[in-house]
């Protein structure tokens, strides 16, 4: 845990840690592949939560090193994982039944683009990246709440928060909140609303890195 968290880098660790703070005790949560999967590492050891992985497990435990791995026990990203007491295995049909029927309280996903109305694009870049949707469509469209953890801009510095998605959408009007290395931003009927800023970041800086109008919450802006 320590080493993995350390390897995230300071800004990423801070945003992932911030996302972890919002998880409601007792909820069922699916953490997407990559950065979202790190959120679990920042939950207190005694925090009551049920982690779901869509390849067929509730009660997902931490990743395990290869020498302790069970060849039959992976998460949806292919990482070898453990289980917690009370875990249950099930097939892919049951797993997505859980997602679609409203039993998944929270899905934390990555994003290529998030639109001001909550549209999400995270599964395809035509001509460049088309591995297929996997479970992303249902996780985005059917979780009771969808949050995004992502860098605020792509590696070329282009904003990921936009007026409208330019890439094929994963879901429409599905994102509730975005955690980035710069800010915590809610999707509201009036568009993006800045709720918190990362330590050392100014509102102007965040606005400049955002590709859509950014409202700012009233009162002093919390820092994370």
């Amino acid at each position, binding site marked *: 845990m320590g080493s993995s968290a350390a390897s995230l880098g300071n800004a990423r660790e801070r945003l992932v840690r911030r996302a972890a703070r919002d998880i409601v*005790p*007792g909820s*069922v949560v699916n953490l997407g592949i990559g950065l979202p999967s790190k959120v*679990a590492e920042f*939950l207190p*050891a*005694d*925090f*009551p*939560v*049920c*982690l*779901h992985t869509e390849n067929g*497990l*509730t*009660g997902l*435990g931490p990743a395990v090193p290869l020498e302790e791995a069970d060849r039959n026990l992976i998460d949806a990203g292919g990482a070898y994982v453990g*289980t*917690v*007491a*009370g*875990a*249950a*295995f*099930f097939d892919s*049909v*049951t797993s*997505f*039944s*859980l*997602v*679609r*029927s*409203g*039993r998944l309280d929270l899905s934390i996903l990555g994003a290529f683009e998030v639109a001001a109305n909550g549209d999400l694009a995270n599964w395809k870049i035509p001509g460049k990246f088309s591995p297929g949707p996997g479970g992303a469509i249902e996780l985005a469209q*059917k979780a009771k709440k969808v949050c995004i953890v992502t860098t605020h801009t792509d590696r070329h510095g282009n904003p990921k928060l936009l007026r409208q998605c330019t890439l094929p959408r994963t879901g429409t009007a599905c994102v509730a909140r975005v955690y980035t290395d710069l800010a915590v931003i809610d999707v509201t009927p009036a568009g993006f609303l800045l709720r918190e800023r990362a330590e050392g970041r100014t509102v102007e800086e965040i606005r400049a890195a955002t590709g859509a109008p950014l409202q700012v919450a009233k009162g002093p802006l919390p820092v994370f």
Partner: protein
Amino acid sequence: MPLPDKLEGLESAVARIPDGAVLLVGGFGVPGTPFTLLRELERQGQQQLTLIRNDANEPGTGIDRLLRSGQVRRLVTSHIGLNAHAIERMNEGSLDVEFCAQGILAERIRAGGAGIPAILTDVGLGTELAAGKTIVEVEGRPLVLEMALRADVALVHAATADPFGNLTYAATARNFNPPMAMAADRVVAETESLVALGDLSAENVETPGSFVDAVVPLSALTEDYGIVCR
């Protein structure tokens, strides 16, 4: 990261059922019927209930007690042949009964639990069970539109549960319980045996606890649960 605890007392678990609720009730005949939850529901007296259940139990037991106490407005079911009282209530018009082919009843509940709004089937075509239903033509073939069934509350009976709500069932007491335990906004499971988290094999859990909201351990089994001497 311990899994959440969902243990709840009988009275409190049932008290959350409001008047007018739609309820899924597990069981096929005696096996798998949540008799204790049903007796508590009779005691508390919620009114105007809609029950979805394979059968009407036998006279004087299970949901028949709720029919007799006047708490039930409507019953969605597949076969009530073992309950002459229910048939009489239906025939006299004081109980609204909707019949479904048994497998389609199971499938509609299953669709509700799977977040699938509707299915298309050829079962029932050529019979009065398809009468009045929407027909959708698919690849030149007429199919009956069957809507998913969901309930406000599901009442199920488990053989074993842990505090998170992972459930197993005994023998043919499984029947409608697993699909029902997925198809309600609130799923309440009474259980004959309560074990600690981790005591159930993760591979042998039949209903994952993430579908279950309340686990009510039974302190004793009433004679309702016993062998029926016909």
